[in-house]
């Protein structure tokens, strides 16, 4: 069972939850109040939704051997543009106006994703450099949109994206779930998944097999931009405002971490959307756990880093092999010595 790809991430997630349960016995309790579900577990899902979205987009990008560092900035831009439009409305509670704001924000994010895809697929710029441009410039754009201020909004319909409920569940959870299911179905039921894995696994062989890899690469960056856009709406809706400096800050790194934990390799090829979701939930649970344990704010990042390191080590076959070998000394037992794992340089 430990051989399954997702065994270790799930085990780590369960372990963290058990720690929480030990510290706070009511941690697992979920109650229904006014037709809404409340509880720590629900909070983890709700707060983790933006990261799940960004992670899903990033997973496809990484599967093509790419990376998208700009998603954090796109998150900020998305929220900023939507809030700017809303703040100019006479009636912020108009559903039509809210829809326009959402459409504008997502349209811009699609365009930003297309820009990244253009740099990578057409101009052939290395993805890390190409998306670094928008990572840096994007925060600036977001600040220009908000004029350096934090725009606060009162729109009820818009805030629902972050804190609304539907069928007892927070809307943000449902949105993340729908995106996950749709994306999974799309890539696995169509041939997209196979083609993406082929392009990431061996670009030249894919080209010689007739794949139009340029289009495919373009597509994943556009999709990545869209996911980041939705995540940006969620975050700003949740805080009822747009903070160009802090919205989505470092979320690209969390997303990369999430997909790595979930078993997608940064070298491209095979990917696992389910793994990314587990990874994102693990990271969110970690944040929640740090608060539950009452660890002081100043130590939070350090504790997070240490847990992540631990998870990564446990997942590393090379590390596990080493531990096992040490435990089994003296070493006259080459018989079941684990197969040496290729570590790409």
């Amino acid at each position, binding site marked *: 069972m430990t051989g399954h790809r997702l065994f270790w991430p799930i085990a780590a997630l369960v372990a963290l939850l058990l720690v929480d349960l030990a510290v706070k016995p009511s941690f697992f309790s979920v109650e229904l109040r006014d037709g809404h579900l409340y509880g720590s577990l629900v909070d983890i899902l709700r707060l983790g939704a933006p990261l799940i979205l960004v992670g899903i987009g990033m997973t496809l990008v990484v599967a093509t051997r790419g990376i998208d560092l700009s998603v954090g900035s796109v998150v900020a831009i998305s929220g900023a543009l939507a809030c700017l439009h809303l703040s100019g409305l006479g009636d912020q509670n108009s559903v039509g106006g809210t829809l326009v704001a959402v459409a504008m924000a997502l349209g811009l994010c699609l365009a930003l994703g297309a820009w990244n895809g253009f740099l990578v697929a057409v101009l052939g710029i290395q993805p890390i450099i190409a998306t670094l441009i928008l990572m840096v410039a994007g925060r600036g754009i977001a600040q220009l949109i908000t004029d350096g201020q934090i725009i606060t909004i009162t729109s009820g319909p818009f805030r629902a994206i972050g804190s609304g409920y539907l069928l007892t569940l927070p809307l943000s959870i449902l949105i993340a779930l729908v995106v996950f299911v749709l994306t999974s179905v799309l890539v696995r039921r169509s041939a997209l998944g*196979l083609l993406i894995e082929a392009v990431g696994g061996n670009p030249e062989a894919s080209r010689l*097999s*007739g*794949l139009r890899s340029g289009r*495919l690469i373009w597509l994943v960056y556009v999709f990545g931009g869209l996911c980041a856009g939705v995540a940006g709406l969620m975050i700003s809706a949740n805080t009822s405002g747009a903070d160009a400096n802090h919205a989505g800050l470092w979320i690209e790194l969390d997303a990369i971490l999430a997909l790595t934990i979930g078993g997608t390799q940064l070298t491209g090829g095979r990917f696992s959307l389910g793994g990314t979701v587990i990874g994102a939930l693990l990271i969110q649970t970690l944040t929640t756990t740090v608060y539950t344990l009452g660890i002081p704010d100043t130590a939070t990042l350090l504790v997070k880093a240490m847990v992540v390191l631990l998870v990564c080590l446990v997942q590393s076959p090379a590390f596990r092999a080493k531990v096992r070998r040490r435990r089994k000394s003296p070493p006259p037992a080459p018989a079941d010595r684990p197969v040496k794992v290729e570590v790409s340089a």
Partner: protein
Amino acid sequence: MTEPEAILRMTGIRKEFPGVVALDDVDFRMFPGEVHALMGENGAGKSTLIKTLTGVHGIDAGTIELGGSAVSFAGPPEAQRAGVSTVYQEVNLCPNLSVAENIFIGREPRRFGRIHWAGMRRRAEVLLGALDLRLDVSAGLGSQSIAVQQMVAIARALDVSARVLVLDEPTSSLDAGEVEQLLKVLRSLREDGMAILFVSHFIDQVFAIADRMTVLRNGKLVGEYRTSDITPVELVTRMIGKELEVLDDLEESAHDRSDLAAAPVFLQADGLSRKGAVAPFSLEIRQGEVVGLAGLLGSGRTELARLLFGADHSDSGTLTVDGAVVPMRTPRAGMDHRIAFSPEDRKTEGLVGELTVRENIVLALQAARGWSRPLSRKRQDELAARYVAALDIRPTSPETLVRNLSGGNQQKVLLARWLITEPRLLILDEPTRGIDIGAKTEIQRLVAKLSGDGMAVLFISAELEEVLRLSHRVTVLRDRKVVAQLDNESLTADEIMSIIAEGSSA
């Protein structure tokens, strides 16, 4: 006659992979000052045996003794320190580093705690000089030919105090002159007392160099023989486990081109060229015709083929398919005209190693259909199962990762990928390189059958006998120019060799 003490003795080696017994109770020994050939078909366990020796794989049973004491290496570096150096089939070097850096990577000569570059270059030159190779050792390795890269890999293996040198298919990418050079080096190493394990699919090379040979079949030991006690035919019979069927009948049918003159021309190139790749050439291929491309490595064979498929685009000239001029600027264009191209370098240009056999087989067909029209899983399974069976791909599970397959089986996967697209022209660039005699025969048979069914084939191979056996016509390249186009009526390898050597057309 008493035999000297064996330097290496592997006894009762067993190695299992999930679902497969790769090695079953195999004994193997080597003596100093001998070249020992390890023979067997693809998948017989040759590479696995080497990998258990060098510590890439652990063993499930058995013992390995080096110089009389039991050893168990944790990996190739440890094996190398103990005196077992290996040069792998696929050159495992870093093309972005210089020649000298590649030789000394991981054990750079140091002075005052930093790398002693000048000393490193000097020693690299000395080492390569011993292999009769003179070149700028600070040049990037990627700019060298595969043959030179192979020599560099050997030089790297020789730099340590090796007692056992393992060469896995060292000659598969070398031309005749380079092979001779390599064999010369091996002879002198043998005189110095080195034990050399030599794996090659070229039977004549094995008989030219080996003193002793061990034959494996399906992971089991068939026997150990002195070269002087066995004939090539006996050897092949033991390798494949049945009498070698001679390809005579194949030859008969292949050369019967009476009906070909009437066959319509499928593809025609007029003055096609690409700067630095191949000079303007003209070529026509009829339906059902096999055109062979002969020439040395680097003579422009591959480059010519790539232009026909659209893998590269041409600078000048026109390409006509079915009588209509077509632009051929991308592989996709080639595929749209039902042309298939199986590239020379399977690993970097052909297969996606971390995908399964099934996924690799359906890749081109799926790419042609586009992402929105997926082949159903059922259809994929059917196609994969049919071609795994038809081409005898082993292991037989279509869900095996392609990178775990042997070279010959990988080649068959590549062939299957193109065959399911039902091409009208199949371009095969070195389809039999580095694969065993059994698979080679199968591929040749397949080519003859496909052409009999009306498929045009462009067949590229460094082995002239093979080109002659299959082709109706032979196009000879030299220095990136087409120098001759000959009907293969009574053509001999010697005639082609002399054209390649002198550049004169008949």
